[in-house]
């Protein structure tokens, strides 16, 4: 009986060796990097909100400080989402008839808070605290990006753990003077690492503990 697989099938064995290794590596590479895709982490992707609130307009245009609305950012883990009353402190006087703002007025009338869609949502096992980051000289811009240039809110960073650790392992590369924390246009000096090291020492950042599991995962 003749062989079912003749010599012409031999190329398949050779290709399968190279192809198997290459295919497996490719698959592994894809699997490993899925978490890093913007598509998965939603970086740069605005979400539907009840009102198309523009940080660009309010921050860059009006010059309102972050803390006018996010009142607890300096003393609490949570930065704070403003109550409707904060919106109405201006919008009871200007744009009072704007149809776009009807959900805000409805919320004020019915005493029902606006249901914003959260953009920066960390997993529940991460215990992030805004206050300590603000107090130790980490600017809003470092994590939230140039909010003053965002007509709609989106994530500027992946919030993956490797991204957190980038700073927790080398805070001197990101730290800034406390008075610059809320400055959206701060530019790091040319000698950031050296200047940052000074600030790390000055503010007493405990670098030896920054990568302990319990720092963020309690």
């Amino acid at each position, binding site marked *: 009986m003749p*062989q*079912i*697989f003749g010599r012409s*099938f*031999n190329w398949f*064995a050779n290709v399968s060796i190279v192809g198997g290794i290459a295919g497996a590596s490719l698959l*592994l590479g894809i699997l*490993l990097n899925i*978490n*890093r895709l913007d598509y998965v982490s939603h970086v740069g992707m605005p979400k539907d909100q009840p009102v198309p609130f523009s940080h660009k307009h309010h921050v860059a245009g009006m010059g309102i400080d972050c803390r006018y609305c996010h009142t607890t950012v300096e003393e609490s883990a949570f930065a704070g989402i403003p109550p409707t009353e904060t919106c109405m402190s201006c919008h009871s006087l200007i744009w009072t008839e704007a149809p776009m703002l009807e959900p805000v007025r409805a919320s004020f009338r019915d005493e029902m808070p606006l249901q914003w869609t959260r953009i920066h949502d960390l997993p529940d096992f991460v215990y992030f605290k805004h206050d300590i980051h603000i107090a130790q000289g980490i600017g809003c811009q470092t994590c939230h990006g140039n909010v003053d240039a965002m007509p709609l809110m989106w994530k500027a960073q*992946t919030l*993956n*753990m*490797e991204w957190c*650790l*980038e700073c927790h392992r080398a805070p001197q590369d990101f730290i800034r003077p406390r008075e610059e924390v809320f400055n959206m246009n701060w530019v790091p000096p040319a000698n950031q690492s050296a200047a940052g090291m000074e600030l790390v020492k000055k503010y007493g950042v405990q670098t030896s503990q920054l990568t302990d599991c319990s720092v963020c995962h309690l």
Partner: protein
Amino acid sequence: MSESSTSTRQQYTPPPPELGPGQTSHTSITEKITSIVLTPHTPYQWFIVVLIGLMLVGLLQVSIAYLLYEGIGIWGLNVPVGWGFAIIHFVWWIGIGHAGTLISAILLLFRQKWRTSINRSAEAMTIFAVMCAGMFPLIHTGRPWLAAYWLFPYPNSMAVWPQFRSPLIWDVFAVSTYFTVSLVFWFLGMVPDLASFRDRAKHRVTRVIYGVLAMGWRGSAVHWERYEMTSLMLAGLATPLVLSVHSVISLDFSVSILPGWHTTIFPPYFVAGAIYAGFAMVLLLLIPIRRLYGLQDFITLRHLENMGKVMLTAGLIVAYGYFMEQFIAWYSASVYEGFMMQNRMFGDYGSFYWALILCNIAIPQFLWSKRVRRNTVWLMFISFVISVGMWLERFVIVITSLHADFMPSSWDMFYPTFWDWATYAGTIGFFLFAFFLFVRGMPVIAAHEIRTLLPFGKKEK
């Protein structure tokens, strides 16, 4: 040299041939081995074993499904015994696998020709035993789909790595290397025989299946030369694994500071125990199979006797290990070590310890007798006893050390649940099922190696 010593010197008798009298030619060997597979006839005993195996596999699936649904709380684990049956059976199965690697790699390098009739099935046993073993730590995590990122170091988006100083991560490397090398070695060894199947098969589907598996083997001189060289290299790779894998597994225990675990004797004593258990399992499988398929000419009494001798030797090393544990418990003058040994022998689990001594030390001493070593019923019995004994050994090590450690307020008993037993029985079923599938569909004996045992096939003078 005195007159008396020369007169008492025994006459040298050459060992009996490796093959029985029935096998005299290349054709008869190949015919016999292919006839097990390339036949529509399957012995009814095969169906019985496979059916039992399948039912137990069903039980295993139910156990695992329930475990994934409910969590590892369905097992008898709790503080202080956090390592129960899963770890006992992990070590038990891994140990069983070692005989296959020892036979195929170390005996190959030592040119022990008698290994050729048992190496293939012993290697298959290794593969399936390691599969069973691997299941336990995976399901012990409770969430096996996450285990990959807990166990394997890879550049993940969390920028964290497993703890490389932990023996548990060494385990992952030891076991996965062991499995890979064993699998490649096993499959490579089968290629020439699969080609024989391909050439002898009548049915087109069978020819295609064995044709794919034979990977274009034509039996040319170049093929054989490369084959022999690759086998030797793989044997060289596998040889250190025989010693390293179980050493690493013993470090899971001995790196900790728990009395009863924190012992330097563990690596050699675990390796000896593994070989002990492995040979017992080889005998338990091969004695019925050689009978069922009439393979007495290939797996002769000489093979069984040799395996009995290996078991006896390994058993004595294990006995030395037990003795050393007791000696060090006394010699260290540590209260905790002393208490551990006393608790092991006379505590709540004392009966397990004495059963272990009976199974692993007392009964196997019958192997000193040549008549016992050449009697299949005795060998089956002793092998079974050793398998139970090695299970007891792991039970004693894991449970009695954990259940009463330094702090009396945390002492508690461990009681296995139904699901503990069901998972264990399920892996035994999986093992039997897989092994008998292998026997039915793959070359259970390395025909091309057996052929070299024929008088005119031997290369040596």
